[in-house]
């Protein structure tokens, strides 16, 4: 992300667009084969292991494939059943939507807050950064999700802690009102990756702006709103897109905390978890493929929407010069 603020010319000045292309042709033009040769392992991998299976799943989503017998073409049947007769499909969308809307902003806020704390000069900076980043490395693992379940379970740390101050929840994991929160907190706790990116973004904000702000007598809040946030908005946008996509795909936490059931009372039935149940415990691979493609479409639509709104609030240094 270090280059984010150095390239505005490319965006605003049209004449610049031709030059890099010319240069590229000059550099690789004589022997393009070499470039492709070096690219080939990844291109092949992407084609065979990602694009190929994806196309296969697109085909399967129009069949009744069940893992054992040859798939039969059923047209739009799977999609139609999803929308007309599958109540759990709607539950899963609702649970996932709640998770995305809760966890993404909270995670970004936590990441930004910690990044700003770590942005100050102090000793043992590296240590703190690693410490705060660690949950992201661990958090997606099954082991941590298991620990999480124990912490929030009946008689666990949270339950007995709250009970001692008179709040009796009886454990969050087995309570349909709180179970989703457990997974949200697990997700938010893994704020390390966006935090590191925020930290890099904060370092790019020119010191002069802060100096100017303090000369003008701006307080902390004013500086934050008028300098930090606008200057950081491209990074915020980047993190927002990435984390939203991640949130849509959340699976491990829900799977482990609810023992794969999405319970209690379907309160943690994430879309991906329901997809998994349909595909791998009921062997309805055609149906599950249809669900997977709907998820792809949904994520694409939400991402497109985010890009649309970005025009109104994402600020790139240099743009306003025009």
């Amino acid at each position, binding site marked *: 992300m270090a280059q984010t603020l150095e390239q505005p010319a490319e965006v605003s000045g049209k004449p610049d667009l031709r030059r890099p292309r010319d240069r590229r042709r000059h550099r690789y033009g004589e022997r393009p084969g070499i470039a492709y040769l070096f690219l080939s392992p990844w291109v092949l991998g992407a084609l065979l292991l990602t694009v190929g299976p994806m196309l296969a799943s697109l085909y399967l989503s129009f069949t009744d494939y069940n893992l054992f017998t040859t798939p039969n073409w059923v047209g739009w049947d799977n999609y139609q059943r999803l929308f007309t007769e599958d109540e759990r499909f709607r539950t899963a969308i609702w649970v996932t939507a709640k998770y995305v809307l809760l966890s993404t902003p909270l995670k970004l806020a936590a990441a930004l807050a910690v990044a700003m704390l770590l942005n100050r000069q102090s000793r043992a900076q590296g240590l703190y950064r690693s410490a705060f980043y660690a949950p992201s490395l661990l958090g997606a693992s099954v082991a941590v999700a298991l620990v999480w379940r124990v912490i929030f379970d009946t008689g666990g740390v949270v339950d007995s802690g709250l009970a001692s101050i008179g709040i009796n929840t009886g454990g969050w994991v087995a309570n349909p009102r709180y179970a989703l929160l457990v997974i949200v907190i697990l997700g938010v706790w893994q704020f390390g990756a966006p935090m590191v990116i925020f930290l890099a973004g904060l370092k790019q904000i020119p010191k002069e702006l802060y100096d100017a702000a303090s000369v003008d007598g701006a307080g902390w809040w004013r500086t934050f709103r008028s300098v930090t946030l606008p200057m950081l908005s491209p990074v915020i946008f*980047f993190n927002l897109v990435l984390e939203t996509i991640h949130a849509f795909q959340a699976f491990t936490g829900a799977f482990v905390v609810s023992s794969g059931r999405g319970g209690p*009372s379907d309160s943690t039935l994430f879309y991906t978890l329901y997809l998994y149940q349909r595909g791998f*415990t009921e062997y309805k691979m055609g149906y599950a493929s249809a669900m997977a493609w709907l998820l792809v479409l949904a994520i694409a639509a939400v991402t497109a929407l985010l890009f649309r709104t970005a025009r109104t609030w994402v600020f790139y240094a240099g743009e306003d010069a025009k």
Partner: protein
Amino acid sequence: MRSNRPAGAVRILALVALGGLLGVTAGCGSDGDGGSGSDGGNVTIRFDWWGNPDRAAATEAAVKLFQTKNPNIKVETSYAEFNAYFQKLATQIAGGGAPDVLQMDYRFVREYADRGVLAPLNEGPAKVDTANVTEQLLSGGTVNDKLYGIPPTQNTQIFNYDFAAWQKAGAAEPKEGWTWADLSAAAKKVSDSTGGKVRGVVDFGGIEDWFEVWLRQQGKTLYTEDGKLGYTAADVTRWWQFTDGLRRNGAATPAQVTTKVDGSQANDPVVQKTASSGFAYDSGFTPDTWQIMGRELKLTHFPTDGGKLGQYAKPAMMFSISQASKQKEAAAKLINFLINDNEAGKTLGMSRGLPANAKVREQVGGALQGPPQAAYQFEQQIGPKLEPAPPPPPKGASTAKSTFQRIYDDVIFQRAQIPQAAEKFFAEAQQAIAS
């Protein structure tokens, strides 16, 4: 802005993808051999099952015995926990790498047999001698007059209770012909005597297995002969109204405890001592059971209102041979050994329940002690009253079972009215077994 900002994302994503690819391509290297094959008269077969480590130890010892008796047959074994086992099995079969001998579940046998994945065991190269296996059990593995799974063991539904706690609470202990009202009254007494800390009974409303016994007591079945639901939504409503009442008056476990019941000891309220009794199968008893439970329990039959017991000899698990196996004779030999051989029987003990082979059972039964002995005695006593196992349920039955528990959650957390919840379950169950 379009051109450079997403490029950062793409670059990071590309890096992540690269890392992933490296992992995948590295993983492909070790996929060369494996599977079954023969060289020079020697035969290798694969045998997979689900279960805990204690069952694995017993099974591997029995397999070792088999190999010393049949030096030209090599058996490769592997096991996993139930859900993982079936996910793996399905993908293995789809990929053409099914194990030769596999452990099959009663709820899945029709599904797999209908799809042509299993070899018949009463004819052809995979024929196994079942002369001494209880006839009542074999019906559970028979689909369209062909035997696709042989149960090595039988088990049946039980009610087990902490008799010391019941006596202390002044609750009437179950006796021959006790009724559901008796259970309700006794459970309430236990709960009251402990101020609700230990409930009288585990809320059993969400477990389809116990619902089935209740249905059978009224002359109904879970599934009809032609694989339809053998009851109505009104039956479900009555059942849930009864169990919901138990929870509401404190006799049964609260919702947050009940929702975690998944058949494992770790989440069993009786083991955790938050309940003093519950329904179960009698196949889970090992010499350590009382230690795990922290007290001794008594085993008895289900309560009943009309005098009809409704319980049956259940072929909980079976051994099957995959149709794709190239070594069906050797595979049949292994199954034959596991179910009919006395020494194998002794080695396996009660690790899968009571041996289905009557002769082996006598041998094994004499040597039992502790909890398995209690289970054995219960089986001997109730055996004559048990009905034959119903034919294997239709495909989708396992989905219907989990749906039953899931929608009962809506009842106990009071998120739905009972009649509506019952209707909803009924519709989903019909959908599950139809498609």
